[in-house]
């Protein structure tokens, strides 16, 4: 069910998510959501025992001859790549092959973080550069069809690691946390969910596999989309590809992990206008800007709500303080829009027209031509009325440090191919 079908939605009384969440959210009879319930497991599981289980799971995948890699690890210049690699290389003592998909919206900071990661952890890396003309064509199509400028990034970063596992015959792929588990409690940690084609299509790709983009009413061709295909079942079976999530075996806390990586490996962070988190997505000009704005248009909430919910669950923010932070950030304008228009070859007015077509009428009202009023859960009373016992003072541990900027140059622009850092 798309959010557009939702006319009534309920909010969790503990965090700030509602049943309009695109991954789905179930609220129990006590008013607590599935995401908060699964998060409770983080304080009850025996994480030492979980770690030993992880060690036993990866053991058979170690290359006996030492002539092949032990695993494939997808990385970027932002997100949780440093911590994942710290666990894989330093603690599990595996020899990983790193893979990264070039999203073309790269910030200098992201290129720097990725180069630093390669150097510090001393790993081989494969970079996939898909024809940028095809990427542009696909973005024009996905923006028009389902309001996404990020489909090629998501499709590439979820397909390339698995394609590499098949091509290099390295069956184990190691991911960080499972987004569905962390946000909406799609699975218990005990389910030990693995990477699946179904989850990728359903959630990462918003229901659209690469082949679903081909249409007689569009200009996309086979040559544009073939590199985004997930390997077929026969190949997955013959290589024995298995994608595991470290979040099932390690108590996942991105804030604490990033701070450890800043201390130990010189990871760098940057500020954004649309959220208070300075650690995530610093590798991309668009994720926390245009992509995030589209998320607000389509789903009635944005990344700052994800960040606030995470911090509320970790006990560093009160619900009221989290809501105040969301209100402070979610309507901020997206930055770097002009850069995206130049890259895609569209006028800003045309881009806004396309984006407006995807505003969800459950959350937006057109008060006059091209004038929109937000009526989402942060302003219509849904969140204000549903919180119980949420007042009080937030922990002083909820401070996010910024030690760099996305781009320190006078005229910021995408680094479409960036191999290293000067």
């Amino acid at each position: 069910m798309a959010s557009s079908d939702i006319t009534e939605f309920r909010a969790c009384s503990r965090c700030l998510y509602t049943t309009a969440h695109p991954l789905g959210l179930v609220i129990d009879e006590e008013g607590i959501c599935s995401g908060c319930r699964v998060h409770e497991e983080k304080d009850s599981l025996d994480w030492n025992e979980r770690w030993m289980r992880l060690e036993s799971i990866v053991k058979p995948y170690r290359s006996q001859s030492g002539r092949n890699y032990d695993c494939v690890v997808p990385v970027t210049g932002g997100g949780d790549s440093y911590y994942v690699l710290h666990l894989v290389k330093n603690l599990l003592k595996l020899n990983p092959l790193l893979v990264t998909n070039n999203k073309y919206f790269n910030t200098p900071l992201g290129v720097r973080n990725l180069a630093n990661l390669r150097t510090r952890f001393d790993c081989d890396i494969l970079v996939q550069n898909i024809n940028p003309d095809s990427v542009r064509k696909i973005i024009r199509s996905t923006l028009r069809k389902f309001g996404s400028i990020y489909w090629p990034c998501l499709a590439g970063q979820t397909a390339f690691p698995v394609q590499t596992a098949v091509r290099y015959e390295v069956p184990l792929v190691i991911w960080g946390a499972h987004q569905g588990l962390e946000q909406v409690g799609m699975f218990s940690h005990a389910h030990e969910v693995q990477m699946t084609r179904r989850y990728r299509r359903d959630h990462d790709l918003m229901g659209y596999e690469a082949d679903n983009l081909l249409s007689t009413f569009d200009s996309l061709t086979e040559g544009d989309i073939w590199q985004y295909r997930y390997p077929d079942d026969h190949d997955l079976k013959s290589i024995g590809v298995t994608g595991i999530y470290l979040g099932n075996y390690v108590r996942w806390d991105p804030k604490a992990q990033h701070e450890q990586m800043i201390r130990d490996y010189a990871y760098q962070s940057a500020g954004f206008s649309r959220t208070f988190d300075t650690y995530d997505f610093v590798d991309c000009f668009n994720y926390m800007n245009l992509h995030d704005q589209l998320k607000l248009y389509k789903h009635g909430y944005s990344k700052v709500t994800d960040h606030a919910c995470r911090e509320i669950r970790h006990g560093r923010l009160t619900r009221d303080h989290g809501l105040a932070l969301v209100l402070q950030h979610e309507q901020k304008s997206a930055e770097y829009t002009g850069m995206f228009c130049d890259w895609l070859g569209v006028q800003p007015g045309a881009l806004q027209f396309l984006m407006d077509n995807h505003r969800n009428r459950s959350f937006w009202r057109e008060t006059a031509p091209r004038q929109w009023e937000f009526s989402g859960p942060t302003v219509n009373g849904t969140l204000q009325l549903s919180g119980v016992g949420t007042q009080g003072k937030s922990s002083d541990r909820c401070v996010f440090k910024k030690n760099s900027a996305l781009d320190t140059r006078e005229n910021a622009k995408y680094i479409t191919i960036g191999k290293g850092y000067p």
Partner: protein
Amino acid sequence: MLKKRLVAVIVVKDGRAVQSFGYRRYLPLGRPEILASNLDRWGCDEILVLCIDRGRQGLGPDIGLLKRLASMRLSTPLIYGGGVMTAEQAALVVHHGADRVCIDFALHQDDVQPIREMAVRLGAQALIGVFPLARLGTGLQWLDHRNGVSRAFSRENIALFDQGVISEAMIIDWSHEGCAGAFDIQLVTRFPMHNVPLIAFGGISEPSQAAVLLSLPQVSAVAVGNFLNYTELAAQRFKQQLPDLLLRPTTYSRYV
């Protein structure tokens, strides 16, 4: 049927696929039609879409969902359950692409004439009776989950099977639903209608469990829900660990 079957179950609540645990706790999964498309490619023998809130809320069958499922062009036989109370509704469900229909709340009605009418219109082969059961002493208790009240089988229910109105019974171990390896086999061995082919569901996670169940002559199929969502190629792995004679062989799709 020469072969026995692995039935993949998609539980749907509020229009979304969910994991269900003991009929009381749910976790979100995704779009039912995308789950169905995946199970179809995996080569499950049948797909059961069970909309658990349609009957309770008196909403009738979810025709919108059936249309979305039809748009996925599934080749696997589709069973639909949820909100079907009349012959007209059952026919509408089949008209929109389901091959068979599950009857649940209609079985609890004093008047079973609508079920007889369904059989006349669609054929008994198209009808599956759903029985959420728990063991109580030496007997079985059949749960009406609209009101949480359990009771024994009625003479009318038994007659529906004896007279060939319904072709199969689905036994749900509702209290163990979602618990790994927890299906109570005595629900099958104590089921009072002896000549009825049975589909066992609820807490079946292990191929070894399925092998024991499928070795019983009265069991025609095992149904698996939550446990097909945790790993890639879960259905094929499940089937591969069962003796070839019991189930259709596994398949692995190729692009070319």
